[in-house]
Every structure is written in structure tokens, then in C-alpha cells.
């Protein structure tokens, strides 16, 4: 059934609501890639078997990931009239006792992580679950969750990502309906501009401005692209956004396409994410069937569709011109800009093209639904909204963390992450992937915003935060990233191709204990030159891990070289 009116949308909301809070108990297993890999899929199968053989009146379903990776596998229990309870560290052997408790209207105390009496899905819908289970901690009292603000991950881990009705039930596709049936494209761009949204892929370019430039470009055909290549090692928020809530991305792209006057969109996604690809394909199919993609969306004259293009593992394809070359079936070698993607002759197949990161697109529906004023209040001036960070490495509570931009590193690493794993002392974090830098613990009052991170010598990047502890050798970390960048350099320009290789040789020599003080000087000059003279962002930023470790951990280099 195609959705063409407000009442069609309301009807789908009721269908979805009946799945989220059915009249019977609902058990939902967290089945994003990580949850499945640590046993979630076996738990699901075992629960399925018990429910089938017993012919039990329990709705079993799957959800994405709420981000508390350390506590996986997670299982949500919803008993009518009771709060939703998240069970943690569940294993296959618990399945029988879980079911027995549920049938008795109860949950396992020793497995309960927290309870959620009501959940604000942000876009105007608050899901009421119920009361009771007072002995179980509230969601907001769990230290890992307490300091977070879920806007992008508002549905992640709570709705079935493979069911469009559940997304609609929690307020999904209302923003797209509102935009397409009640706003001019100009007005949509105005809202995005006023919200202050900046690109979540790393550079922080104002999204509204990019949209306006694309809209104003005169051409017979234009494209929008979602960059889902997530090439930064240590970052996986985009994977979870797509696996847990793919319709949010699709809705963002529909609104963007309408604003820019585009009828064709592409999602460029890495081959290493098979589950995300599968869920996106499923979601696109569902959206087409509901009349939200394809011809005459919501019964209007607006037509737009999305296709998936699969990448093949090249970090340099995060660079916009290389990404487009890759979709065109070429090697991903950047070309100098201008022409930019938004220029005629610069984008996909030579047409003006708007490229935004997964998380940037995911911000769009909530901005349209709640208004730019609401959105701009979150975060800091010039850095509005929230950002999802992947907090990994040698930190106690690993997981995906969503906080307002401008939140300090110390809040993220110590309050949310609980400091070092195994009681070790945290020494530094590395942010922004291979283009980013290392920030020492003495600078942990640094607010996580685009400018402050740049001032500290690092970058926001896509939001990876890799924690290093007292046992981590910082020179080895610098070598790790230079080795990565050397392998990923496309080889087109000399400073990057040759310069990085020689940086790597120098670091290898220093780490082998054969370096001299003169080598350290050569190293510093070399990385300066690479930074100043490389053709594209990969080469210009690749020295950052060396520059920051030289600046903040010079003693570790000095200790390795002979005088």
C-alpha cells in the first residue's frame, strides 16, 4: 500500500505501534554485526526454537544496537504494562530461564541492565512502556548512558531495522511528508542552514551551504551521494546507524533530494559491511513499496530513487573526487579541485553532485521535524547537534557514544568510558583515524568540536576515539598510521607516495633502536613537507599522527634514539 496522505501515514503508525508494544510479551535480540558475532544470533535461534515448539504467545524480533558494546549480547524484554528491560551479557543457556520468567510476567534480575518506562524518540513520539520492576536501575542511572544524548541513535536498539512500520510508528517519515507536502525546497535548505549542521564525515563543511550550491548549479541532471565507505579504522558508527536504523538515512536523503531538485541518489558503501548492505537493500525495497521512493512520492510530483554502489576498500575514496571516480568504475585517484563535485563537470558522470556522510544525512529528518531552532540549541555555538563517537581501544566501557558537540574528552573517556581497561592508566586518545592525531591526557578538557580538535593537532574525522594506555608505545602508533597511509596512498603525487614511504622507513629504524637525533630532525622536516605539498587530503593529513606524537610524546622518541 502506497502512503499518499496523513491518514495513510497514521494507519502505518498504528500497524507499527502494535508490533512495538503488542498485547503479548515481546523479546527483541540486539542483532547488529557485533551483537550477532558475540552470540546474539545463537540466542535468537534458541529463543525461536523454544517459542515455536511451545507454541508460546511471545513476539520474537530483532533490533539493532543501543551502543553498549561491552555488555553484549543484549536482549530487550517488553511485557505489557511493564517497562522495557534490557538484559545484558546474555548467552544461549539463558534462553530457557528468560522465557520462563517472561511467561510469569517477570525478568531475570541478575541479567537486567536497566529499565525504560518511557522512551523519547525525539521526533515528537514518546513510547510509553509501563511501570514496575522498580528494583532494576533506570536507563538514565546507568553511568554509560547517563551523559549521553541520543538524537541520531534515538531508535537504535529499540526498533526492528527490517520493518518500516516500526520506524514510522516512532515518528519516521513524518519529516519527509512535512517537507514534500508543506515546504518549498528553499525553505528546507533554509532550515538546514539555520540549524548549523556541519558535515559529519570529518571536514565539517556547512551542509546547508553545500545543498544551496548544488541546488543553484544549472544542469539537466544532478546526483546526491551518501558516503558510507567509513574507511577510518577504529570508527564504526556509520555501520551501526545503517544496521540499526536504515530508514533514517533514506528519509534524510529523500528530504535532501527534494531540497536540491535531484531524482537520483547513491549510497557508496564498503564491501566489508555485508549486514548494512543487506539491511539498506531491504529498507530501500520497503520504501519503494510504500511509495516513499520512486515516482510521485507521497502522491506528489516529486520523484527520487536510491541505488547502492559497493566500494572495494580504498581509504583514499573518502576523498570526494576519488569516491566519484570509484563509482564510475575507475581507480580512486583524486584530482585537484576545482572543479568541485558541486560544479558542472566535477561530479558523478560530470554532473553537479552533493556528497554527504551517513551521519550528516541522518541528522536531516530531526532538523525538519523539530525545527532548526530546536536543533541549534544542542551542542555549542558553531558546533550544533550531537555526534556519535566510537569509543574503543584500551578503555573500560567500549561502545558507541552520542553526546552534544563540545562535550569534553574527559567526560567521554572517564565519565562514560570509565577510564582505562583493566585499571590501567589512560595516556592518550587518537581521534579522526589516519588523518587525525593523538591527544595526551593532560589536554582532555578539550571540547570535542571541529575547531578545538584542529587546535590540538587532530581532527574530528568520522568520530573514532581510540584510547591508549600506559602500555601503548606512541612511536609504534605513529608507525601504525604511517604504514596504513603508505599502503593507501594512491601513488599519484610524489610527496605522499615517496614521502610517506621514507617516513615509514625512518620510524622503523627508530623503533628498531637504530635511529639518531638527526633522524628525528629529518622526520620532522619530512612530515612538514608532505603536509604542505600533497595533492589531496590523504597526504596533507597523513603526517598528523607523527606531528602530534612528536609534539606531545617527544620523550618516547628521545628514549629510542642514540645521541
Amino acid at each position, binding site marked *: 500500500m502506497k502512503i499518499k496522505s496523513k491518514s495513510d501515514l497514521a494507519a502505518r503508525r498504528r500497524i507499527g505501534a502494535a508490533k512495538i508494544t503488542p498485547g503479548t510479551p515481546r523479546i527483541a535480540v540486539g542483532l547488529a554485526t557485533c551483537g550477532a*558475532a558475540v552470540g546474539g544470533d545463537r540466542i535468537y535461534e534458541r529463543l525461536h526454537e523454544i517459542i515455536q515448539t511451545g507454541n508460546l504467545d511471545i513476539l520474537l524480533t530483532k533490533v539493532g544496537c543501543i551502543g553498549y558494546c561491552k555488555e553484549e549480547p543484549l536482549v530487550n524484554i517488553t511485557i505489557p504494562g511493564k517497562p522495557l528491560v534490557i538484559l545484558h551479557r546474555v548467552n544461549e543457556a539463558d534462553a530457557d530461564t528468560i522465557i520462563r520468567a517472561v511467561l510469569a510476567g517477570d525478568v531475570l534480575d541478575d541479567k537486567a541492565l536497566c529499565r525504560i518506562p518511557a522512551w523519547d524518540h525525539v521526533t515528537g513520539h514518546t513510547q510509553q512502556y509501563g511501570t514496575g520492576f522498580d528494583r532494576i536501575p533506570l536507563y538514565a542511572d546507568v553511568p554509560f548512558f547517563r551523559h549521553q544524548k541520543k538524537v541520531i541513535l534515538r531508535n537504535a536498539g529499540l526498533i526492528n531495522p527490517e520493518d518500516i512500520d516500526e520506524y514510522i510508528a516512532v515518528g519516521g517519515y513524518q519529516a519527509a511528508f512535512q517537507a514534500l507536502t508543506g515546504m518549498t525546497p528553499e525553505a528546507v535548505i533554509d532550515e538546514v542552514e539555520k540549524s548549523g549542521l556541519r558535515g559529519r564525515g570529518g571536514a565539517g563543511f556547512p551542509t546547508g551551504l553545500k545543498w544551496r550550491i548544488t541546488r543553484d548549479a544549472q544542469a539537466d541532471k544532478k546526483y546526491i551521494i551518501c558516503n558510507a565507505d567509513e574507511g577510518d579504522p577504529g570508527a564504526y558508527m556509520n555501520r551501526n546507524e545503517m544496521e540499526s536504523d536504515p530508514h533514517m538515512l533514506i528519509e534524510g536523503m529523500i528530504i535532501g533530494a527534494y531540497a536540491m531538485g535531484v531524482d537520483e541518489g547513491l549510497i557508496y558503501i564498503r564491501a566489508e559491511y*555485508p549486514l548494512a548492505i543487506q539491511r539498506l537493500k531491504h529498507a530501500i525495497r520497503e520504501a519503494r513499496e510504500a511509495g516513499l521512493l520512486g515516482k510521485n512520492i507521497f502522491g506528489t510530483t516529486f520523484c527520487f530513487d536510491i541505488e547502492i554502489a559497493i566500494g*572495494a576498500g580504498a581509504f583514499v575514496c573518502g576523498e570526494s573526487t576519488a569516491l566519484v571516480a570509484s563509482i564510475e568504475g575507475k581507480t580512486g585517484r583524486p584530482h585537484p579541485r576545482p572543479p568541485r563535485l558541486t560544479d558542472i563537470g566535477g561530479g558523478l558522470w560530470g554532473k553537479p553532485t552533493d556528497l554527504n556522510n551517513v551521519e550528516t544525512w541522518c541528522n536531516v529528518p530531526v532538523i525538519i521535524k523539530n525545527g532548526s531552532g530546536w536543533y541549534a540549541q544542542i551542542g555549542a555555538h558553531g558546533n550544533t547537534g550531537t555526534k556519535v563517537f566510537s569509543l*574503543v581501544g584500551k578503555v573500560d566501557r567500549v561502545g558507541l557514544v552520542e553526546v552534544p558537540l563540545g562535550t569534553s574528552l574527559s567526560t567521554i573517556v572517564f565519565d562514560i568510558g570509565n577510564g582505562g581497561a583493566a585499571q590501567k592508566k589512560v595516556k592518550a586518545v587518537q581521534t579522526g583515524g589516519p588523518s587525525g592525531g593523538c591527544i595526551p591526557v593532560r589536554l582532555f578538557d578539550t571540547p570535542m568540536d571541529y575547531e578545538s580538535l584542529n587546535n590540538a593537532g587532530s581532527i574530528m574525522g568520522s568520530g*573514532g576515539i581510540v584510547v591508549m594506555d600506559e602500555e601503548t608505545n606512541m612511536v609504534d602508533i605513529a608507525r601504525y598510521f604511517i604504514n596504513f597511509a603508505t599502503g593507501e596512498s594512491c601513488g599519484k603525487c610524489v610527496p605522499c607516495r615517496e614521502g610517506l614511504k621514507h617516513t615509514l622507513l625512518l620510524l622503523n629504524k627508530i623503533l628498531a633502536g637504530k635511529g639518531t637525533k638527526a633522524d628525528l630532525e629529518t622526520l620532522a622536516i619530512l612530515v612538514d613537507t608532505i603536509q604542505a605539498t600533497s595533492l589531496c587530503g590523504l597526504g596533507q593529513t597523513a603526517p598528523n599522527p607523527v606531528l602530534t606524537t612528536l609534539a606531545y610524546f617527544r620523550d618516547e622518541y628521545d628514549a629510542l634514539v642514540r645521541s
Partner: protein
Amino acid sequence: MDEKTLDEIIARYAAPSGRLLGILGEIQNEEGYIPRETLESLAEKLDVHLSRLYSLVTFYSFFSLKPVGDHVITVCMGTACHVKGAETILATLESLLGIRGDTTEDGKFSVTTRDNKFTLEIARCFGACSMAPVLQVDGHLYGYTTPGNLPGILAEYGWRSHED
């Protein structure tokens, strides 16, 4: 790869955007590597130069031209895995399997046991950083790996220790 399978893959990619990498990706997934004959016949069918396809296959790390064994083990070398000991995991696997590999200049690493049972490869990042160090066998992810639990994982795929 037989001609029929290749034709079916090609037919799934009618639109030009994402076509070449999409087709090559399916061949890689199907065969575990890109066989030379398949690449040659693809060049003919699509009327593109073999050299162009070859440049794609060597540029992108997802593709491999080297045949692989019955089971492919891929060790994640992402940042989180690195700080949690991915190198030790790789070295332990090399010693358990009795093979030694080297990273080539284009960043690829692939080595197969003499009995053709196992191929050991590396990946840039699986995006499963919370369970670092991570590895994959035939597409199945294993998290929180340690040198100690590697023999158990290998045994699931028919590996036997030489001491047995």
C-alpha cells in the same frame, strides 16, 4: 567461474554507477579471489580493456588475484585491533598454520597453507572495533580473540595441531 554465473552477475548491474566494482566484488565473494580467466572473459563481455580491470583489481584492497584455500582467515588490522594486539594474533596464526606471509607494496597480504586448506589474509578494518582484536573465518566474525583461543577457532574448520 562458469559463463552462466558470470552472465547472471553482469545482468544484475544494468546501471553504470557502481557497475564495475559491483561485478568484481561479486566475483571476489563467489570465488574468494579473481581468477585470471574470469577477468579476461569479463573484459570481453563488457568491452573494456583487460588492463583497466587489472588496475582496479590491484588498486582496491578487497580484491585478490591469488587463489585461496578452502577456508579464508582474515585478521583485522584496524586501530583498535592494533592497540589490542592484532600483530600477535597474526603471528600466532602464522605459527599455528606453519606459514609466513609478507605485506606487498600495495598493502595486500595473502598466504595459503601447502595443503590448500587455509588462507591467511589481513583487512584494514571490519568496523567491529568494540570486540577487538577481531578476525573473520569464511565471513564469520570472531571477537575478543587471544592467542590462546585461536586453536579452538581453527579446530572448528578442521585444523589439527601437529602435536596431536
